[in-house]
């Protein structure tokens, strides 16, 4: 019941019949002192209109039972000492959402063809309303996302938040890091100017230096022995279809485990330990 006061009304569990005061209607005390006036039709309509959003949410909740999940997720307990460093993960998620949104709109103007790619990017930057802004958000946002991932990873490492029982979430996070780097690599070729062309040539050749499988990996990335007509569309498909789907799925798993396992307290907060019976325990230090 204490928690209930924090929860928005539509998300609260409805009171069982015979319990509580039903939440609506005047208290019985009022009835005695002054008999209520009969509300006019307009007033009653107003009352019902006020309840409409709650009714819609209740309708949804009755059919999805989402409120239990949402209250569990939104009102979960966080440890003492939680601070701004804990927002780096959400910041990374926000950066990804920015990349996904701007990417969708850029795809509406971009042509993944070796002869038209550069011209279509120039068209976005020079002619399309706010095109340079959206393109810039996507271009610089990718660097922001990579930087935020590493900061988030550093926070997790230095706070010891990768330890039991959160190892699997660390592993998922590393896979997400690799996928993000692949996004950065495949996205770099798309403007198809001199810089992106040669950077991709060098990147593919670095992939090729892996023994035994490396040369075949290069051929797979280029779709042939040389950077050719289908290399660009291959990179484009990987960049906007294959990897985003994997990233979204893994972010879901990542968040699920965060909610399921909870977050850790920062390492500078000592856990409140009950006094141990043996005073000679080396763990107790000078005391």
């Amino acid at each position, binding site marked *: 019941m204490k928690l209930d006061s924090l929860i928005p009304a539509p998300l609260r569990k409805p009171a069982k019949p015979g319990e509580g005061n039903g939440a609506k209607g005047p208290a019985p005390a009022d009835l005695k002192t002054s008999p209520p006036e009969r509300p006019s039709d307009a007033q009653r309509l107003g009352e019902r209109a006020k309840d409409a959003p709650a009714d819609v949410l209740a309708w949804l909740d009755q059919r999805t039972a989402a409120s239990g999940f949402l209250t569990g997720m939104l009102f979960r307990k966080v440890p003492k000492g939680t601070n701004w460093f804990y927002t780096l993960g959400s910041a990374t998620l926000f950066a990804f959402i920015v990349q996904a949104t701007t990417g969708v709109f850029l795809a509406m103007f971009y042509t993944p063809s*070796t*002869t038209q790619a550069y011209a279509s990017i120039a068209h976005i930057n020079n002619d399309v309303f706010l095109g340079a802004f959206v393109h810039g958000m996507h271009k610089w946002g990718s660097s922001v996302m990579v930087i935020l991932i590493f900061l988030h990873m550093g926070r997790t490492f230095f706070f010891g938040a990768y330890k039991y029982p959160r190892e699997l979430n660390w592993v998922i996070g590393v896979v997400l890091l690799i996928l993000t780097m692949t996004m950065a690599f495949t996205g770099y070729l798309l403007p*198809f100017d001199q810089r992106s*062309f*040669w950077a991709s*040539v*060098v990147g*593919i*050749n*670095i992939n*090729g*230096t892996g*023994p*035994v499988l*490396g*040369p*075949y990996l*290069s*051929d*797979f990335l*280029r*779709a*042939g*022995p*040389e*950077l*050719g*007509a*289908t290399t660009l569309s291959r990179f484009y498909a990987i960049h906007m279809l294959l990897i985003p789907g994997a990233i979204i799925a893994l972010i879901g798993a990542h968040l699920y485990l965060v909610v399921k396992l909870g977050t850790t307290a920062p390492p500078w907060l000592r856990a409140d330990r009950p006094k141990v019976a043996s005073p000679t325990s080396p763990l107790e230090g000078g005391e």
Partner: protein
Amino acid sequence: MADEANKQNGAEGASPAERAKPDPPGYFEGESMTRRHAFTVASQALGGIAGAAIVLPAVGFAVAPIFHRGKERWEAVGRVDDFVEDTYRQVVFTETEGIGDAGKTTAYVRRGSKQLGEDPKQMVAVSNRCAHLGCPVRFVEAAGNFICPCHGGVYDFQGKRIGGPPVRPLDQFQTRIRNGQVELGPRYSVTSQLEPVRARDPGEFTGGIWEYLYPPRPSTFPPPSGS
């Protein structure tokens, strides 16, 4: 109950000793799995076949370019008289068709030099693709060397590595002479002794055990036989 009746039928020929041993419920005489288990295995197998029928072609489609070799391409780059044996002439020709300027590459071409033990009737075409990571090298006339601007790779007049990070000599192109025109063909790589091998990507060693660690790719052309 039907199971029970069938079991009776199947067991008619069995010896009394076998008949005395009770079968586990749901099994027929002499069978190793229940009907339920048999159907589970069968439907999983069918599901696996249906999945493979979709996944295998898709994977094959994605990796097919690894095993595909394009058409051999020759392009004339100039008259035989245009080239001498003691310095290179830079030519630009199309290596990959269909992608415009991005498919062009640069080669440095000269006649074979007697002093270096080469056949003077043959043309030598050295690729400008650095054997380190694929940056474009430049032939510096004054030094007689190829120099890479990216990471400082240096190659001698024949394209052998003499400094910096490259792992092998510069690639070469096959050459031939048709109607007085020099034509350049497929790319091939060379070992440190300038023996031709199949084209490798930059950064990959050639010769000796490296031929197995960086295996030749099916998408490249066989090297010219004999030099």
